[in-house]
């Protein structure tokens, strides 16, 4: 019988079937960061257990790290304590730590792929829900909690139930000014934030086939926002070309056999899916969220929907969103004034994102009323962007060019909204209070749309700015 990639990766990594009905699944790569690991290391110490596969475990620092200074100790004592904790834990448990001194530091979901650690056919775990990003390579990648981080440190395994599988095909050709971010926001808008609960998403179709790896990462990154346990794209020539020559990918004579195995892990024609959803990419327009979850999204030329437009179980959340955001159904989203523009995050902090945003930034200057920051996803992204002069493009236009980290996506560092500020953000969550102010407001959109909002001081259709038509 024809198998899916999920079937094959699952079989290859199954250690045993547990009495609980879960699978004991071997984890090929464990990514660790400073926020969800200290308690796990502490529990490991209390149990007097070592890290079972330290060479399959890699750590970095991203969530709490300031983006305005390299100076240690950090001004924030709690952040400094967390930094020292991960340094100490990595030393005592024998784990590689990519800190700023390494030149490889960055958001955990940016550095894994760019170093070649993330490869097709792997199982990956990390104490972060956006671990689904790595599925872009045809890996099965799970975000987990701290107790499960402990489990993986101790046993290199997870106890987990195999999810059901939904194939999502996006066919057609994306219009100019419409990006991977718009595709995934459209998918979540269509299937809902609960639509993926209990599922893995397999993304396919001609739109995905033509996407670069960075674009596929943006799509897979937000699988969790649709409720899915993970999301992936089958590996193809685009995947193999991306990995060739990466520092930690198979080298020299090992590369072709690796490609052979990677290719063999892809879903086969005729494989069975629990659900199939087909969407048209040709008719998409730039998408902007208007509410308090990523499913509350509309095209930039649309109006905020009326409560009556929602299913019964989404209506109360819509009403809650009108109140929190402070606007009324029927109002257009375009023209909404923004106070802050944030370009960065594991969703959209890669080189191609910065290039697209810079293309827009070249067209004008940031409105004086807007605070605009660009936070590259990693030190490697920053180096490449600087080599291309993108940092100067942004600075000239009035954006601040920062050091790599998660920054204002979740505001665990000093980058926070203040009061009821509205932020045009290339990140992944518009939850209440997400960007550091309990009453702050987030509008999710593509990096190019964020740049457009920064120049105009309001939500604007980037297609118009780029000389096309809405």
């Amino acid at each position, binding site marked *: 019988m024809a198998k899916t990639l999920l079937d094959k990766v699952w079989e290859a990594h199954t250690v045993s079937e547990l009495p609980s009905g879960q699978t004991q699944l071997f984890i090929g790569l464990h990514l660790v960061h400073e926020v*969800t690991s200290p308690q796990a290391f502490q529990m490991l110490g209390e149990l007097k257990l070592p890290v079972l596969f330290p060479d399959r475990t890699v750590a970095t620092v991203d969530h709490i790290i300031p983006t305005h200074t390299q100076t240690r100790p950090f001004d924030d004592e709690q952040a400094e304590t967390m930094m020292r904790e991960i340094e100490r834990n990595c030393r005592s448990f024998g784990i590689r730590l990519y800190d700023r001194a390494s030149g490889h530091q960055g958001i955990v979901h940016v550095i894994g792929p760019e170093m070649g650690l993330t490869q097709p056919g792997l199982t990956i775990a990390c104490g972060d829900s956006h671990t689904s990003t790595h599925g872009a390579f045809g890996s099965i990648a799970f975000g987990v909690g701290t107790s499960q981080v402990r489990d993986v440190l101790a046993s290199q395994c997870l106890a987990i139930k195999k999810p059901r599988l939904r194939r999502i095909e996006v066919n057609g050709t994306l219009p100019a000014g419409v990006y991977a971010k718009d595709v995934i926001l459209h998918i979540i808008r269509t299937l809902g934030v609960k639509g993926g609960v209990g599922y893995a998403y397999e993304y396919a179709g001609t739109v995905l086939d033509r996407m670069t790896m960075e674009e596929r990462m943006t799509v897979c990154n937000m699988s969790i926002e649709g409720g899915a346990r993970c999301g992936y794209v089958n590996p193809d020539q685009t995947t193999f070309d991306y990995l060739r020559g990466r520092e930690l990918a198979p080298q020299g004579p090992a590369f072709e056999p690796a490609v052979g195995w990677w290719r063999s892990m892809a879903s086969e024609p005729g494989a069975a899916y629990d659900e199939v959803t087909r969407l048209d990419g040709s008719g998409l327009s730039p998408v902007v969220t208007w509410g308090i979850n990523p499913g509350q999204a509309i095209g930039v030329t649309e109006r905020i929907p009326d409560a009556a437009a929602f299913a019964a179980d989404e209506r109360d959340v819509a009403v809650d969103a009108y109140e929190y955001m402070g606007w009324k159904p029927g109002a257009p989203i375009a023209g909404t004034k923004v106070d802050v523009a944030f370009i960065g995050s594991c969703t959209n902090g890669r080189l191609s994102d910065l290039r697209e945003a810079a293309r827009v930034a070249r067209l004008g200057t940031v409105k004086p009323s807007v605070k605009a920051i660009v936070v590259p996803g990693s030190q490697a992204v920053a180096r490449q962007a600087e080599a291309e002069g993108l940092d100067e493009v942004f600075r000239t236009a009035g954006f601040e060019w920062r050091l790599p980290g998660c920054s204002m996506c979740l505001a665990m560092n000093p980058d926070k909204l203040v009061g009821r500020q509205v932020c045009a953000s290339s990140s992944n969550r518009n939850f209440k209070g997400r960007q550091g102010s309990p009453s702050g407001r987030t509008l999710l959109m593509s990096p190019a749309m964020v740049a457009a909002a920064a120049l105009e001081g309001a939500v604007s259709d980037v297609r118009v700015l780029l000389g096309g038509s809405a």
Partner: protein
Amino acid sequence: MGGLVKVQTVTGRPIPLRGNDIDTDRIIPARYLKAVTFDGLGHAAFFDERFDAEGHSKGHILDEPRFQAKGTRVAIVNKNFGCGSSREHAPQALLRWGIKALIGESFADIFFGNCVALGMPCVTASEAEVAALMAAVEEDPAHDLTVDLDARTATYRGRTYAVDLPPGVRNQFLQGTWDGTRVLLEAGDRIHQTAQRLPYIRGFGK
């Protein structure tokens, strides 16, 4: 690792937490994640929903006088509770506030798994049953609610509500095998055997 801790019933005062798609950023804002332990998180549960910028109570249900019972608590929630961030700080905060079990229409996957790892059952009930139970509790919250995982029931003031959870997870609680590390390490050499079968570990081309 201590002895097996079986969870068959959880009994305590109920507290309804109404709303669909309540995300873990709301359950615990990110600034409370800046710590190297889970200690003291109970006070931070739903902090920004409970207090304004000056620290004054907004009258959230967690702070309503009639919901201030001591001891074990059982939360009743709606759909997709715990969506968003994987932060285990969310169930840890609820646990430290006193919530030892949840009854809801549905739960987000990662949140559900985190709760299992802490020995906190999340059981599901139909929309109608959850609505009826919430109404009964809001009418009079001053009684104990019992969730019985063996019988798959919740009982409040003499009325029994049907609840469910996946059979395997139910067995984990009933047998006390919800401690992941212990169960996983029992596989011993099979973990290494599985690893050695994988070409990316054995070495490609070998």
